[in-house]
């Protein structure tokens, strides 16, 4: 018998922020994942299984900071990065497919992404996601359909009061202007909806009065579809107006198609260092402090692989979705047959018969 290596409890500790789920919580998680998978299949999506790590260049240009990537070197001296984002690695995989045969692709994925987070905030370095990528999917009908799929996932899970918060990368980009787009402090002030800080930064950067006023009003441009019309009055640039036109069409389409979605528009929504180019959204629920997932349109992402392919997608954070679920029992198998291991072949025969009847078979150890 090998000696136990140690009885020190410290050896049983895991790295903070890694994912560890077991028992009823894991069963609920499975139910969440299966529900989203079912809805995705219902809309014609098929699974794509993607590498857990890849060349570091694959993960450039996303919202994961370079310093937060988990990097390691293989035996050939190549720097590799643990998957930090699904859309970026899916784009690379689907680019291979598209070069072979250009077409509309519906792909759904599930797995973990890895990003360093300092401990102490309850933040997680591993996140399980399930989501989908819709490639060669241009225009507002695909935008609206994507929101409908996300909405169907939420209502299938019983999260009827979850809200989809819609913004537009093109609008916020135009509002920020050439100079503002790379200004991290300004982006952060907008992200925190902090008008005092926006004013202060605009003054320091010497922005003109019209731009300052526009930026300071962004945190208040949140509400029903009427905020799109309000935004129109303060955003005269053609690029911004084009984005607002898109959102108008989207809002009308959601209305006319009879989609029963709980949506809000937040035109002050920013995503730092993201690949989004058009409509983008996040999902919130009052039971959980942070978003349950999100997505949007990224029409320029495939440029890096020499392809001009409009695409859209979203991903859900499975842990947060599970947290948001009403606390109901997960249904187990209806009938179960128990047998004791001490009874040997007799026990096994009983269980095999139970399984042919489709029942749950539980082989118990000696008491």
């Amino acid at each position: 018998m090998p000696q136990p290596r140690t009885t020190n409890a410290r050896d049983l500790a895991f790295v903070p922020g890694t994912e560890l789920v077991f028992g009823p919580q894991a069963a609920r998680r499975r139910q969440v994942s299966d529900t989203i998978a079912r809805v995705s299949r219902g809309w014609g999506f098929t699974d794509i299984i993607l590498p857990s790590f890849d060349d570091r260049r694959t993960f450039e240009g996303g919202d994961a900071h370079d310093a937060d990537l988990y990097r390691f070197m293989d035996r050939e001296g190549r720097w590799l990065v643990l998957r930090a984002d699904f859309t970026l690695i899916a784009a690379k995989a689907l680019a291979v497919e598209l070069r072979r045969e250009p077409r509309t692709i519906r792909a759904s994925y599930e797995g973990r992404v890895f990003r360093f987070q300092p401990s102490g905030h309850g933040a997680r370095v591993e996140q399980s996601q399930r989501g989908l990528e819709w490639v060669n999917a241009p225009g507002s009908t695909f935008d609206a359909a994507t929101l409908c799929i996300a909405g169907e996932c939420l209502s299938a899970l019983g999260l009827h009061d979850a809200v989809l918060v819609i913004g537009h990368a093109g609008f916020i980009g135009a509002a920020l202007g050439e100079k503002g787009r790379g200004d991290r402090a300004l982006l952060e002030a907008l992200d925190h909806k902090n008008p005092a800080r926006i004013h202060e930064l605009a003054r320091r950067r010497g922005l003109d009065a019209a731009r300052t006023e526009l930026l300071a009003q962004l945190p208040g441009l949140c509400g029903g579809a009427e905020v799109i019309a309000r935004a129109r009055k303060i955003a005269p640039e053609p690029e911004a107006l084009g984005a607002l036109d898109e959102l108008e069409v989207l809002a009308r389409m959601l209305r006319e198609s009879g989609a029963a979605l709980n949506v809000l528009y937040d035109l002050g929504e920013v995503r730092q260092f993201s690949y989004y180019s058009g409509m983008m959204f996040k999902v919130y629920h009052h039971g959980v402090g942070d978003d349950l997932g999100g997505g949007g349109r990224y029409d320029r992402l495939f440029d890096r692989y020499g392809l001009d392919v409009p695409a859209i997608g979203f991903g859900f954070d499975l842990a947060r979705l599970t947290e948001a679920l009403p606390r109901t029992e997960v249904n187990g198998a209806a009938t179960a047959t128990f047998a004791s291991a001490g009874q040997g072949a007799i026990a096994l025969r009983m269980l095999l018969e139970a399984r042919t009847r489709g029942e749950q078979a539980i082989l118990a150890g000696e008491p």
Partner: protein
Amino acid sequence: MLRMALPTGRILKDAERFLASAGFPPVENLSQTRKLMVPSQCGRLEYLLVKPVDSPLYVEQGVAELGVSGKDVLMELAPDILEPLDLGFARCRMVVAGRPEIRRSLDNTLSPVRVATKYPRVARLHFEKLGVPSVILKLSGSVEIGAVLGLSHYIVDIVETGTTLRENGLVVHEEVAQCSARFVVNRAAFYSHLSEIGAILEAFKSATEKAHV
């Protein structure tokens, strides 16, 4: 009813006066009660009395939908929450202070300056921005002693009137930021209770404008 995290200590009296002026007085005196949760008279808010440094965490995690927090604490913790209003009270300055004869502060030299502070993140980022190498010493209180007795070249701390600094023979070398109490909001709560939080924000806005006239 929405829950609002309020910091006990220095800010609480001002916060209580502000809430009363905005139309949300608590049912009992917050500075005197031993309860940790007290509703407002109107029944729209429930105040949660917490340590100042914990207030943003309660809001970030969604345990409290709303909160009041000093900008100094927000700068140190950098929580992922919304900060839609400067409430204007509990004003102070975050400064770099030290003995008057210390002059080597803001030159970029290779030997690091030693900085004692309750705000290690703020201090580290400030000296990084200046390109000055620093060794940060985290203290929990009476930071001034650090500079007086030569534990550090400088301290990074908040000052209101500057009396404590003066009485200990220290001077302000540089201002890092202006601080005051801020109204903070959880992201998910902001969207889930948009109209109610919008109404509270408007009430708070007009109360701060009244206070400044």
